[in-house]
């Protein structure tokens, strides 16, 4: 049933008539997304230029309101908040990259092998996927994080180990659908081997889906990392947007002053904007991978 397999990341654009409008709008979602993500990448790279302070440097007095010296003010112990927000982008980008790739590698491998080999191996792998899917992921992440030690790499590792099943399922179903197509059978009929078939037919078809899946995993990882830091379970040596929030909420007098307005708002905006950027990029790729999603089936005269 086609309706049920519609992914949650969805058609932003479903133009009613004509495809010209669709192309333009689709370009928009990808371009805007890339622009937003690009903004954060440059901020993370240019951090030393953008701010003279270090993350936990006592740069000024506690809870100083925004000024020329501290454009976003200082926090409860006198760290510069702009510095923390800019450096927080590094944590988020790093986790996005590490955990996104990790999830993708595990998921794509399981999905590819399962879909391509089929048979008993497919059954076993899919049952295993079902089991992992049924695990309570967030509590498990918290527990494993505590046991393994709260470093960013460990967090990325645990996320990769727990959150791969959706990617595996998507890749598998895509591989299965390609396997069923005649051009692949034809290629096998010409004597093509596994590697040739994979290279020529499967990977190019799955490519865009993989990218969309990577983006989705990256976004989820960013959210999880921020969440863990927000719970106080993040990497203690790193600044993270979640941790800025945590520190703010832990500050007893937060709501007795105006400090919340410069302390809470920047990390929330940064986090949400970055995630929105990733979402838009993901939507852009998904629509490219599956143009059917964005165009309503046109009725032709029969």
């Amino acid at each position: 049933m086609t309706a049920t397999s519609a992914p949650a990341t969805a058609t932003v654009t479903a133009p009613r008539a004509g495809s010209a409008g669709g192309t333009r709008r689709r370009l928009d979602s990808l371009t805007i997304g890339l622009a937003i993500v690009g903004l954060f990448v440059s901020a993370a790279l240019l951090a030393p230029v953008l701010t003279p302070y270090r993350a936990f440097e006592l740069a000024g007095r506690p809870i100083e309101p925004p000024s020329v010296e501290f454009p976003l003010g200082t926090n409860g112990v006198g760290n510069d908040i702009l510095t923390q927000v800019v450096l927080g982008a590094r944590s988020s980008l790093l986790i996005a990259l590490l955990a996104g790739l990790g999830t993708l590698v595990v998921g794509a491998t399981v999905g590819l092998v399962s879909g391509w080999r089929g048979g008993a191996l497919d059954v076993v792998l899919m049952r295993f996927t079902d089991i992992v899917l049924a695990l309570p992921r967030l509590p498990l992440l918290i527990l494993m994080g505590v046991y393994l030690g709260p470093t960013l790499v460990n967090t990325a590792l645990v996320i990769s180990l727990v959150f791969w099943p959706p990617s595996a399922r998507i890749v598998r179903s895509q591989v299965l659908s390609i396997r069923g197509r005649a051009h692949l059978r034809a290629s096998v009929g010409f004597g093509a081997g596994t590697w040739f078939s994979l290279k020529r037919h499967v990977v190019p078809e799955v490519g865009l889906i993989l990218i969309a899946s990577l983006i989705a995993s990256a976004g989820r990882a960013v959210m999880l990392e921020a969440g863990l830091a927000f719970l106080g379970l993040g990497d203690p040596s790193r600044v993270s947007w979640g941790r800025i929030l945590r520190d703010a909420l832990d500050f007893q007098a937060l709501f007795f002053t105006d400090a919340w307005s410069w302390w809470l708002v920047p990390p929330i905006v940064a986090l949400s904007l970055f995630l929105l950027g990733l979402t838009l990029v993901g939507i852009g790729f998904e629509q490219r991978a599956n143009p059917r999603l964005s165009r309503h089936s046109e009725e032709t005269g029969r």
Partner: protein
Amino acid sequence: MARQPEAAGERAAGAPLGRSSGGRVGHLTGVAALHVVTIFVLVSLVFFLPRALPGDPLNALLDPEVGGTFTAEARAELEAHYQLDRPIGEQYVGYLGRMLTLDFGWSISRQSPVSTLVAARLPWTLLLMGLALSFAGAISWIVGTTSAWRRGSKSDRGLVAAFTLARSVPDFAIATVLLVVFAVLVPVLPVAGNRTVFAQYTSIWQELGDVIAHLILPVSALTIGLLGSKFLLVRNSVIGSLGQEYMMLARAKGLPTRIQKYRHAGRNALLPFLTLLGVQFGFAVGGSIFVEEVFTYPGMGTLILDAVDTRDYPLLEALFLVLAATVLVANFAVDLIYTWLDPGVSAGTPS
């Protein structure tokens, strides 16, 4: 936690577990077996994780920061409870036996039976998530269907943009924003706990009102967090339905728009959507950790965090068993319902 449901939806949206096995009874047996395996894997993970690390598992628990709560007496009691002097296989069997008989032991950090603690917290979380899922489900259903019906219109595009944005904001951020708004800007609602501390209620209605007032913010934060992905899911499935030929037949039959929209387009998206909601309910116990934390709501989420913080091992074991059991019960119920309601859809629908 807004992302978790999305991942869960993956499974619901595909098909219930083990649908390939033929026959209704056989199918359900297969599903049950799978759930039992799942719960077994999780419980084993909780057992082996601390033991896989070098050193005494109790040392892993004995973080210097929290070591203060550990007296020599408590340590002895723990060692006896876990039979740490025995071979690991024997420990494992003993552990599984305790889990099977629901003998969870005594919480060190809270000095209370673990079962009492869990029983006191579980209903609040279920209430919180039950309400949030119901609201999010109902709202996304109605708005998503309407938006799909008017696909391409200004209102549709506006809604899609709004929900895409909402989807990008983590629920703890939403909760924090709500906290700021209602703690500072318009302090009309309680922002912490599940009821007013030291309150003396004159009537059950007053008590109920107080509980509801405390529920509003956490439920709102969870609902908003859940809405985004659900709205898009509903909208997409309904749009998928709209292109189907049966929609043209519905129109040809001269049916009013309301019937076309909700009965014909909507009904097709309803079953997978309900399945998704059911599966998400399975993750309810672990799903509200962030929001409970922000609003210091006394539910399972904050209990999990406390247990992790204090390394309260007996409590953790019990919590994970409950987590797994909820997933199992919810999934099994979903599979039952699905098997019951599924009208051989796959046979009747074109690929």
